[in-house]
């Protein structure tokens, strides 16, 4: 499929803003019109993103669909967008989950207009984060993203929403200001070395840094991303934010936002400072493993379903980090795939929890029991999601988890073995929860009259279950698209700077495109 000069990434990034503009002019009383508009926009967005998958060139680690325009000329900052095998699926995941999340937001009745505006705005920033190849541009999207998420949690969240929203915002902010400092340092070092100002990823990757400073820079970046991942012990914002956020917010938070942390490690933190990666590998592997086990153990004893899923995220993301820091092809591919998997399976779990919450307005496990009898379809989907999350072979979770641990075992057997305990623990906490919620007799009379999924919810679940089986049974399309980029990442993170990315031959330039169109 030939993309021509179509600036697909820009369109993807800014199309939701068109939706924002449209919704801004709809009367706030027309709630359904607003919902449908938002949904249609997100569907179109998803459809626009599909060609990425087909047009993506295999076998090259270079960035594709690249667009480069001068942005802040006096600072040497560019509007520089592009994706590679690492981000391709993250972008697709974003458009996909946003679509589902909006569809799952029908139960929002309060200030729907603002809600949908925030959501679409959030989508813009998320795609921007994944596509930006200029550090300043990245930082822009990275930080701006906090605002809509802050509002989503804070306005439409649960009882402790404000605490959670502010905690989320400030925690992330603390991390990112240090990263900003490191970015500034790199910026000046690059200027010193070459005499040109640039925030470009590829340019900055070429830098030779003072080995005494590298650890500090690495830690500054790492802190920002570790908070986002979240790695133990920077995880405590997560349960709060997840629990308090509205369903769709949790889905996006778990599905996309956490991935930005791991993505940041892959794209920036580790390639920039290979020396520090070596130095700190053990520390980060240890934290990852602690996160895996700790997250699982704490999840085991949660009383709130959503909190349980939140802690399970800590555990799962630990696996991703384990994969990244083990630095071999299998582990990193697995870690990357696990990022996608976690987005899907945990996203599905949050959606499901949201559905039951809409009905009963509680998420406490003890309030339930025997739901399987009254909501068989729901129970089935929940079970699929549970098994996807705990890595049952044949579903997506297994492929990622197994690859990660397999690869990690090659380089760090001990950590991999410890990480593998997650397979036992995840089964324990998920099935125990499942048992308490769905099995046994119905003791609470309120649960007797629960209605099974309606058509809308059914469609959501069917849509999200499809990729679970797809990745579980035929992960090849995913893995083969990732592989060259993963290989390049490993080389970079190991300090082989000879494989720095080159620019794609063809640049898509929005301005020239527009002028071209005008001339015709």
């Amino acid at each position, binding site marked *: 499929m030939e993309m021509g000069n179509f600036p697909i990434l820009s369109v993807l990034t800014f199309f939701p803003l068109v939706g924002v503009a449209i919704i801004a002019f709809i009367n706030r009383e027309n709630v359904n019109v607003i919902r449908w508009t938002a949904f249609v926009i997100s569907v179109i967005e998803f459809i626009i993103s599909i060609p990425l998958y087909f047009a993506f060139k295999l076998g090259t680690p270079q960035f594709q669909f690249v667009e480069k325009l001068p942005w802040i000329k006096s600072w040497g900052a560019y509007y520089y967008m592009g994706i590679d095998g690492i981000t391709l699926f993250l972008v697709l995941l974003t458009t996909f989950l946003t679509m589902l999340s909006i569809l799952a937001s029908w139960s929002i009745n309060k*200030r729907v207009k603002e809600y949908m505006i925030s959501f679409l705005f959030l989508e813009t920033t998320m795609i921007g984060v994944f596509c930006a190849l200029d550090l300043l541009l990245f930082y822009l999207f990275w930080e701006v993203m*906090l*605002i809509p998420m802050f*509002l989503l949690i804070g306005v439409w969240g649960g009882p402790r929403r*404000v605490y959670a929203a*502010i905690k989320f915002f400030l925690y992330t*902010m603390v991390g990112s200001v*240090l990263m*900003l400092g490191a970015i*500034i340092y790199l910026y000046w070092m690059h200027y010193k070395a070459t005499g040109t100002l640039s925030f470009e990823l590829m340019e900055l990757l070429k830098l030779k840094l003072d080995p005494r400073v590298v650890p500090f820079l690495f830690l500054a970046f790492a802190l920002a991303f570790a908070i986002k991942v979240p790695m133990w012990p920077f995880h405590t914002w997560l349960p709060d934010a997840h629990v308090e956020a509205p369903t769709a917010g949790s889905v996006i938070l778990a599905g996309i936002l956490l991935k930005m942390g791991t993505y940041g490690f892959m794209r920036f933190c580790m390639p920039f400072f290979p020396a520090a990666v070596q130095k700190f590998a053990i520390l980060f592997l240890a934290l990852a493993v602690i996160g895996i086990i700790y997250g699982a153990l704490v999840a085991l004893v949660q009383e709130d379903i959503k909190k349980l899923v939140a802690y399970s995220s800590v555990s799962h993301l630990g696996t991703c980090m384990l994969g990244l820091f083990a630095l071999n092809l299998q582990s990193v591919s697995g870690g990357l795939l696990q990022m996608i998997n976690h987005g899907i399976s945990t996203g599905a779990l949050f959606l499901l929890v949201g559905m039951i919450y809409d009905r009963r307005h509680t998420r406490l496990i003890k309030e339930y029991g025997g739901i399987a009898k009254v909501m068989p379809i729901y129970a089935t989907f929940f079970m699929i999601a549970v098994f996807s999350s705990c890595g049952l072979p044949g579903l997506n979770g297994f492929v990622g988890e197994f690859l990660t641990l397999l690869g990690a075992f090659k380089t760090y057997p001990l950590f991999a073995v410890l990480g593998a305990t997650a397979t036992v623990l995840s089964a324990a906490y998920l099935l125990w929860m499942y048992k308490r919620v769905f099995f046994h007799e119905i003791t609470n009379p309120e649960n007797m009259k629960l209605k099974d999924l309606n058509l809308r919810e059914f469609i959501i679940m069917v849509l999200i279950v499809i990729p679970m089986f797809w990745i579980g049974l035929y992960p090849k399309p995913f893995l083969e698209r990732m592989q060259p980029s993963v290989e390049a990442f490993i080389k970079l993170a190991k300090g082989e700077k000879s494989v720095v990315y080159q620019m794609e031959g063809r640049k898509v330039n929005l301005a020239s495109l527009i002028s071209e169109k005008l001339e015709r």
Partner: protein
Amino acid sequence: MVLASTKDIYLILPEIALLVTAAVVVIVDAYSRKRGSFLNILSSIGVIVAAYLNFKLYGDHGYAFGSIIYRDKLAYFANYVFLFCAFITCFYARDYLLRENRDYGEFYALVLFATLSMMFVASSASLLMFFLSLEVVSVCLYALAGFVRDRDLCVESALKYLLVGAFSAAFSVLGMAMVYYAAGSLDISAISRADITPFLAVGLVLFAVSIFFKLSAAPFHFWAPDVYQGAPAPVTGFMMTAAKAAIFFFVVRFFMMALGVKELWLSVLIFVSVVSMVIGNFSAIRQMDVKRLLAYSSIAHAGYAMVAIASGTKYGEVATVFYAVAYCLMNLGAFAVISVLAGKDERYVNLEDLQGVAVEHPVLAAALGVFLFSLAGMPGTIGFISKFYAFAAAFKAGLYGLVLFALINSAIAAYYYLKVVYYMFMREPKKSINVQVGVATGIAVLLLVAVVIQSGITPDYLFNFARMSLP
């Protein structure tokens, strides 16, 4: 010897335009109370004329009136900034004044007088000229602060401003006298050539007191929360922005360009910067009065700007100038919104009163949100660009520790901005706030929102403009 050559007059044409306008305003106001409501248009036109003249003059360098006024691109650029602030203030203040039944021409006249004095502050080539114009600005602002003279808060803030301001000015005079003794002249060029003796240094420090004072930099900031809280919102907006910007421009001209920061000032600047950030940010955390909160925030911002000043490099100069501009835009906007939200007699300035505004006035709340996020330094707004560049400049100059401190501070600062957003967006409205948004205010706010966001996303125009204004 002629008292003033044509060239002299020519170079200060913008000021003259303002002077004339102010005079006309006073006269019109005196003779026809009824037409008072159009005075904002009149003064806005005067400001535009001045801006036009400024535009025409842009690029004409040179001293005027001997060696007390120096016009260069920096001065013209500064003029634009003051004129913009004055324009916005005059333009929307009418809505406020009408609501408070204080639609007096003096207001506009005082704003215009203050503005023209600020223009002199930014282009003064002598400490004498600086001090005189600054005092004129101050006198105008004393009057403006107490403009609503039957409001207790206003009167109180005017008194505090007057007494503390005059007190600190006196130190400046003493300092100037010492400088005059040590350097033999008050001309900036002469001072920069003089040997730095301890006497001169102490003189300069004493002189700098009124600069720090006006910048509301700690520990000379104590008046700021009270005055900013008490003064009428448009006045606060004006004096928080234009008056401070004037000082920033002078600082760039005097301390950075003429004297050089490195040996002379670094320790003082770092101290003041750190203390300002700490006091400003921490005091704001528990603050419930939105005006006072922004006042504390402005103290912290003085600290951030000081980071840029401390760098002392060319980058630092650009950063300082740009910071001043950004700061003006954000705070003008914030106070324009507050002037509306506060309601009659500014009764609703407590966060508790503002809770849930977003439900009934989403656009207004969103606009304030934009300004607050900009103040917090969120990317996508001008606040980020200015802060980034300020820190980058200091970083380049090797002030790693200071930058780190400032970065952490700006993360802490995010809390209280978020707090305001939280009250506006995330609480249910307690009572219906009867808010009338005047057309002028609406236009001003939207304009400022547009500029803040536009300059946050594509800062090139504004940034280059600021950079070009420096040699």
